[in-house]
């Protein structure tokens, strides 16, 4: 293995990562099978509606993993990751709008409906290029990445950390929400972007495309998870943990702490962007509501419920909370926020390490809970 890529292969040798990937791939295969092989009336049949719902959960799970990377391992509590998610979503949405072509209500071959409605006669410059899939997909990474780079550069250079950083990330996503609400911004204002027809030539309303999007989201989650594990298990990951716990000491050892923070923050923002881009074609709409500060706080709650600094905890938290939200808002919609708040209080009091903390305790053999860890285990593979 070449030395510059060996760090990427490291997670595949970890038992926990193998287990996670195994469960995820098995779940993807099972859902596919139950959706395709069983007739619609069968009790175990999974409808396409449910498949899309699960796909939405998986994109949330990827978003939660991105938040856990910066919060759990770097100690940066971002309350604005919804902004990166939404930017990735808008980049995808712009591509899908351009794919509509002349099939919109007004039939304009180039301009999306809302621009015709606003009497615009040409595309704004920032919409150029979004008719090409590759360009849009690059922007899915670049738009959130650039925002995180500029924002993080200013924040970390000035050594803004802790609660102050959390507050300005809230301000960031709130400011973007207000901006995107304006019609003059050219992103559809209040209504956002919707009425999508095709993605890469596949009809978005067909069952096969919906299953494909679900599978693509699952694979993106698997890849994002492996990337985060690789970062966390590298020496850079240990520098992150050191920064989280004793920033001044880490700086004293000769590490340029603000650069490490910026690097990981940008990676996390790009992952959030990918999650947003996979979310949009499945729910069929992107609007400024995704920038709302409440949504960004909710993401943090998923991670807290699942358990910080484990990555898989973030996945469990995101899926469980959103499943509960779907069920709850169906039964009694008004009570959902109370239920979420109550759940958060309960977990904080009873399970300070979240659901994953409980899992780790149950799965660890009794012997290891008391005895020192096997001295050869964590570093045995590090030199290979």
């Amino acid at each position: 293995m070449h030395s510059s890529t060996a760090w990427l292969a490291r997670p595949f040798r970890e038992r926990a990562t193998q287990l996670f990937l195994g469960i995820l791939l098995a779940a993807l295969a099972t859902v596919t099978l139950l959706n395709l092989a069983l007739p619609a009336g069968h009790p175990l049949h999974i409808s396409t509606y449910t498949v899309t719902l699960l796909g939405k959960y998986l994109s949330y799970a990827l978003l939660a993993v991105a938040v856990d990377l910066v919060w759990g391992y770097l100690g940066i509590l971002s309350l604005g990751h919804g902004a990166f998610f939404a930017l990735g979503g808008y980049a995808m949405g712009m591509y899908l709008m351009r794919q509509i072509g002349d099939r919109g209500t007004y039939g304009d071959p180039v301009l999306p409906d809302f621009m015709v409605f606003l009497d615009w006669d040409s595309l704004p410059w920032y919409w150029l290029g979004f008719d090409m899939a590759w360009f849009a997909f690059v922007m899915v990474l670049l738009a959130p990445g650039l925002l995180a780079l500029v924002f993080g550069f200013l924040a970390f250079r000035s050594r803004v950390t802790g609660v102050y950083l959390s507050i300005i990330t809230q301000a960031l996503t709130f400011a973007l929400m207000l901006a995107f609400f304006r019609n003059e911004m050219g992103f559809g204002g209040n209504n956002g972007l919707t009425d999508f027809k095709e993605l890469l030539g596949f009809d978005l309303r067909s069952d096969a495309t919906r299953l494909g999007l679900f599978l693509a989201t699952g694979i993106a989650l698997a890849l994002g998870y492996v990337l985060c594990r690789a970062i966390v298990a590298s020496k850079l990951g240990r520098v992150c943990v050191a920064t989280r716990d004793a920033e001044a000491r880490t700086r004293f050892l000769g590490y340029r702490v603000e650069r490490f923070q910026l690097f990981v923050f940008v990676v996390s923002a790009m992952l959030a962007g990918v999650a947003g881009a996979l979310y949009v074609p499945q729910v069929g709409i992107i609007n400024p509501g995704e920038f709302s500060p409440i949504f960004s706080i909710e993401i943090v709650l998923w991670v807290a419920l699942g358990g910080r600094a484990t990555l898989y905890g973030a996945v469990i938290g995101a899926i469980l909370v959103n499943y509960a939200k779907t069920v709850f808002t169906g039964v009694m919609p008004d009570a959902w926020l109370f239920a979420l708040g109550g759940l958060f209080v309960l977990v904080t009091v009873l399970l300070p390490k979240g659901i994953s903390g409980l899992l780790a305790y149950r799965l660890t053999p009794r012997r290891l809970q008391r005895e020192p860890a096997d001295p050869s285990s964590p570093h045995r593979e590090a030199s290979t």
Partner: protein
Amino acid sequence: MNLLHSLADRDRVFDFLVPATSPVDVRHGPILYLEDVTVSFDGFKAIDELNLTIDDGELRCIIGPNGAGKTTMMDIITGKTRPDRGSVWFGSRHDLLAMNEPQIASLGIGRKFQKPTVFEALTVFENLELAMAADKRILPTLTARLTGEFRDRIDEVLATIGLSELRQRPAGILSHGQKQWLEIGMLLMQRPRLLLVDEPVAGMTEQEMERTAELLTGLAGKGKQSVVVVEHDMGFVRSIARTVTVLHQGSVLAEGSMDQVSGDPRVVEVYLGVDPDEEAA
């Protein structure tokens, strides 16, 4: 022709290409040399014409009452404080007053502060790994792999500080004394030539103190490190010191073996005041 061949030979490493791991020139004896150093804060002379010489491989203890200038002296050596007058040399080649803090640290002067700070969530091994002298930019850190050489170095330091058994335990579970040793180990990972150690045994148990005394005396030596210890505990100083320097009002009051120093009537008057053995109790 032979000469040309030897120049083209890729196996050979020319002297000037070898990274200078230890550029300090100690052929003339001392590794640290302070001459007529004076520094004042708002008119108060914290250091007053201080002269101090530390030989290569020496273990030196510095004692003195509060306000004698011990910490200020450390600050001057590490570049944190600029003196008003005087000169400070590291070996006979490096003028420390012309350098900033990171440059001085990379020359091989390590300082251990009084309060230990280790990374509690990381293991003892990982704490040493992070402290290792290595390329500390982002990508080299991301792709870094532990080579056998680095692993040997960590093992060596683990053995020196007596924490080999605890290598895979999180540093958070260590006792206060063990954290102090780990911190000394983290300094050693950077292969320093001179160690400045500020009150290493404050808050330690009797056994931990003995162990620390062994550790510090073992570290000092020709070809190894020179060690300067600032300490209040007279019993501890007596157990490790070959040479003791007594600071008083920013300059050297007395210098010599512990017996010589504690017999000096001026020292007894200004610092020890009472019988030194009683002070230790």
